[in-house]
């Protein structure tokens, strides 16, 4: 096999074709009657198919490629092989190369396949696709046109041609292809796809025909509402029409899902993949679709291919944790740590699983280790701070929140919790100082403003209080309807009471309690009734947050650890 692979590129400069089955169809091909079939005994000038550099390539992929190379070599070695057989062998090798990202080699193989089998649609089509994605638009156009001539009614080739011409700024030609594709296959009945309509819209927008653009984009969205990328085009159309509110509305709805182009030939390429990449993609898809058992199987298979793959162990751990198998997840993380003891991300993952298992001390240890290994990681500091606050280690928790705020200056929640840690430790002055700083740094944060107002209204230390200012802040919040209405209502009542407006305070407090009881939150309602009693007796509140307030028991949220195949630059 190796010998055959080695001489393969060298012999492909000129091949005499003995086509015993001229005009025969390869699977998936559709010869057009107007085109001549490959002739017998033609001398076809073939190009070199340079074998890709397989160093570093996944072993199953190498094997897959070598098998395909050997198959081609064997076909070529048969003196009686037909042009169709040779074309198919070149094309098959091209598809394997394309599946694994060797686009240059794939293109060279397709070119030979197309020379030997000029009636075969797919080789021209695949060539055009590869030329298009590498930016060789002129060559892509030639290849697509050959393909289109063989299948004049196939809509996806028309759409490809439309998009290609649009990319080349040949607007009239693009419009023509998009228009043609709006007719159903083999009929004269108009049945446009969202992709075709969106294409027509893009052309209209580029031609400054805004009314037409609007019509096409809206129709496209009606046909495929999930094609959220069209909202951007619509927004730009409304902008050109001077309709700013509609533009804003469309920008809000904007997404990254393009209109569907059903492309069975490209789908086929994806099914050819083997090896680590295929498993990673499959595992990621299974995770997204919450088929955790399938993901576990895929990641286990990845590990069997490469037992030194630390990240595969980590992904397997995540999949197991999501399946509820926390113990097994921890074991896989242990494997990962045996391979890479300094992997902070694995320690972080173990901390999260430990929380899930109720082992908060273990979680604290893992977060501390993650921080020791990489003090710049934000999440372990944040999770550790939450756990420390729950454990009433307030000063230490405060320090961790402070680190988070330092690493992420825009993180208002970390600043708020840093203040809460100080308040819980009884240091109201420090709490106020932190909140004042946070409020100046992030003036629009309603949670910080609310906390500051509450502290100014109800701190037991009179030097910390500023009742009039507290009322101004919370009234502004209520007026702006920012933040949590319940929290603000409680603060408003405190602030009113702090300036002696007890009757109004009691009125607000009663209304909130009634609302809570109506919502069947009687526990919370009971907590608030203590303050109501104070206000009814014309006394201000001097406990801004009770010791059992949920704010002091932040729940460590389970982070969605990514098991996705991270986007390599090559696929950007």
């Amino acid at each position, binding site marked *: 096999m190796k010998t055959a692979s080695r001489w393969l590129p060298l012999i492909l400069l000129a091949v005499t074709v003995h086509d015993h089955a001229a005009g025969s169809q390869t699977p998936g091909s559709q010869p057009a009657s107007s085109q001549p079939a490959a002739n017998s005994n033609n001398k076809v000038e073939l190009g070199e198919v340079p074998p890709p550099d397989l160093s570093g390539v996944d072993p199953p992929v190498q094997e897959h490629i070598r098998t395909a190379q050997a198959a081609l070599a064997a076909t070529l070695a048969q003196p009686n092989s037909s042009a169709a057989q040779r074309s198919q062998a070149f094309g098959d090798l091209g598809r394997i190369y394309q599946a694994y990202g060797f686009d240059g080699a794939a293109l060279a193989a397709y070119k030979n396949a197309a020379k030997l089998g000029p009636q075969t649609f797919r080789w021209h089509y695949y060539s055009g696709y590869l030329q298009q994605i590498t930016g060789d638009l002129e060559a892509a156009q030639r290849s697509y046109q050959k393909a289109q001539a063989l299948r004049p009614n196939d809509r996806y080739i028309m759409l490809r041609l439309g998009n290609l011409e649009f990319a080349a700024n040949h607007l009239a030609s693009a419009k023509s292809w998009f228009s043609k594709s709006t007719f159903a296959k083999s009929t004269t009945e108009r049945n446009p796809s969202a992709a075709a309509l969106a294409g027509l819209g893009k052309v209209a927008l580029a031609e400054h025909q805004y009314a037409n653009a609007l019509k096409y984009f809206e129709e496209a969205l009606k046909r495929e509402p999930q094609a959220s990328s069209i909202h951007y085009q619509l927004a730009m159309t409304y902008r050109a029409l001077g309709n700013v509110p509609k533009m804003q509305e469309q920008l809000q709805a904007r997404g990254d899902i393009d209109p569907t182009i059903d492309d069975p030939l490209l789908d086929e390429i994806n099914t050819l993949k083997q090896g680590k*990449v295929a498993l990673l993609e499959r595992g990621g898809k299974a995770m997204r679709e919450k088929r955790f058992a399938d993901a576990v199987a895929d990641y286990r298979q990845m590990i069997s291919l490469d037992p030194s793959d630390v990240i595969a162990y980590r992904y397997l751990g995540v999949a197991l944790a999501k399946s509820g198998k926390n113990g097994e997840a921890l074991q896989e993380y242990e494997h990962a740590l045996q391979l890479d003891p300094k992997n902070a991300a694995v320690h972080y993952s173990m901390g999260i699983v430990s929380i899930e298992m109720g082992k908060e001390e273990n979680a604290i240890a893992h977060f501390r280790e993650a921080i020791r290994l990489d003090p710049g990681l934000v999440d372990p500091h944040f999770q550790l701070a939450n756990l420390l606050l729950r454990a009433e280690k307030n000063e230490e928790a405060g320090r961790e929140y402070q680190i988070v705020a330092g690493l992420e*200056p825009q993180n208002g929640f970390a600043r708020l919790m840093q203040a809460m840690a100080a308040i819980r430790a009884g240091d109201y002055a420090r709490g106020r100082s932190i909140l004042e700083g946070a409020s100046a740094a992030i003036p629009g944060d309603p949670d910080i403003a609310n906390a500051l107002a509450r502290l100014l209204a109800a701190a037991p230390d009179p030097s910390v209080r500023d009742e009039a200012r507290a009322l101004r802040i919370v009234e502004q919040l209520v007026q702006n309807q920012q933040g949590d209405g319940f929290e603000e209502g409680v603060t408003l009542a405190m602030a009113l009471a702090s300036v002696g407006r007890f009757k109004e305070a009691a009125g607000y407090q009663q209304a909130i309690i009634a609302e809570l009881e109506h919502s069947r939150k009687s526990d919370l309602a009971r907590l608030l009734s203590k303050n109501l009693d104070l206000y009814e007796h014309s006394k201000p509140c001097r406990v801004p947050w009770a010791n059992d307030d949920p704010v002091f028991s932040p729940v460590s949220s389970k982070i969605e650890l990514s098991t996705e195949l*991270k986007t390599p*630059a090559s696929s950007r």
Partner: protein
Amino acid sequence: MTGIDRRDFVKQFGTAIAAAMSRSRSLYAASPAASPADQDIFTDRAKESGIDFVHFNGMSGSHYHPEVMGSGVALFDYDNDGDLDIFIVQGAALGPNQDVSHATFPPQLPLRGRLYRNDSIRHPDGSSTLKFVDVTEQSGIKALGYGMGVAAADFNNDGWVDLYITNFGHNQMWRNNGDGTFTDVTLESGTDVPGWSCSAAFVDYDRDGWLDLFVGNYVDFRFTDPKKCIAPSGAADYCGPLAFNPLPNRLFRNRRDGTFEDVTVRSQIGSASHGALGVVCADFNNDGWIDLFVANDMRPNQLWMNQRDGTFKDEALVAGCALNRDGAPQSSMGVDAGDLMGRGFEDLVVTNLNGQYAYVYANDGKGWFEDQSFASGVAAATRRSTGFAVSMLDYDNDGWLDLLMVNGGVTLIEEQARKGSPYPLAQSNLLLHNNGKGQFENVTSRAGSVFSLMEVGRGAAFGDIDNDGDIDVVLVNNSGPARLLVNNVGHKKPWIGFRMVGDKYHRDMLGTRVAVFRRNAPTLWRRVHADGSYCSSSDPRVLFGLGDSPEITKVQAHWVGGHVEEWTGLPLGKYTTLREGSGSNKS
């Protein structure tokens, strides 16, 4: 890739480099007018002039993302002798416990950012003998981190240009002492930024006469949290930006006492992180206040419109410059702003990855843009290039801004890998000529042999290095030699140049717009700026090529502070320093 000798790498390019150098030498020896190489628009004169810098990227086979991203260069007059000196940013060893002995390409030692003093001699016939002297050691600049970019400006208004160096790691602020030396004032100035910064820019966003500092941060790459980034074949590959969390950019307000206040949060600049690679500061909506455009890699670009109260609002989506015309983000890297369309507004050009295309956004004067990438021909010309540095420069002084793009891949190029290249990311650079009708012609084939070299281009700074009245270029190749592209053609057309300095402080007034009004020809607008490009800092002087219409009726300056002044009778063919307040006020 470990174990490959640097000589193997050099061999890849050796022939082309030798050819280029041979041409350079012949040009250098002969009179400029008589040289056959004179037909080349640019000639590389790095080596003969003393620029011996070779970038070290620290790669060791681990595919660490930072190794393919650096680095940049600054053109600035650090010794105030009237010519441009050069600072080039250097890489370092990468990875936990790594040292240079593990590197795929052994570095040129000592490994540090290098300062080259311009000691060129200008001859009476107008020609120059270019000469640069490495003064790094004397300067005291110890840029030993993993360098990415550099911004140069006089932040403390003492009349001497300072340097801010961005790193993968902690950044550094180097204060110019005015005696040829610099002092590291990073901590005392309050401008230390850890993480991964790329492009930075000095900008007087609050119009108080003192330069503030924007630092563009990229992504949270960590050795302790490696990502799984593999090619479709399963081979290890470089990660793209989406594999990492983007880092928030930072904005520092100048306190006018040598220190800065971090106003990232208060200004709203930190409210959205998209992984910044390029930044350019200009007044995009003509309200007299400087805005910021940030080029982001695979996430929407940002147009931070100055709200005139110390805060900014990102309006890129509404303005139509966040995404491509299909509504998708591209891999935006380098950026420049200028009056590309000749309408007096700040248009934008942004470089992107191959398979995508470079953006040309035409400004309507109110800060809304129309995508002219396709109609201008720029999309077609750039589709097969991965662009980093970019500049709007009028290379032939015909009065229209052209485009120069410095290119180099970020993922392995199959054909080069197959041929055994140890660093298969090489591409050639592009030169596009503006025909004055909104369209650009690819003139790369006439640009000079240096444009046929295949290298991994990254940062570039643009400026008149030989003071002959045209724009030259110094560019940095990742894991390759720096190049000094001398312009052979621009000075043959009439030109006029200005250095715009403040009234109280003798520093370049970055952000000032200058207009040259001509008889029977369009008015030319240029902006005083050092920012833009990629990770680099350019000549802040403004240069006007006058083409065939050299009759100037007046020169007008729109200063950052808001007032407008005019001058008449200024001399052609030289640079004149215009001090704020020295012209006649325009009502």
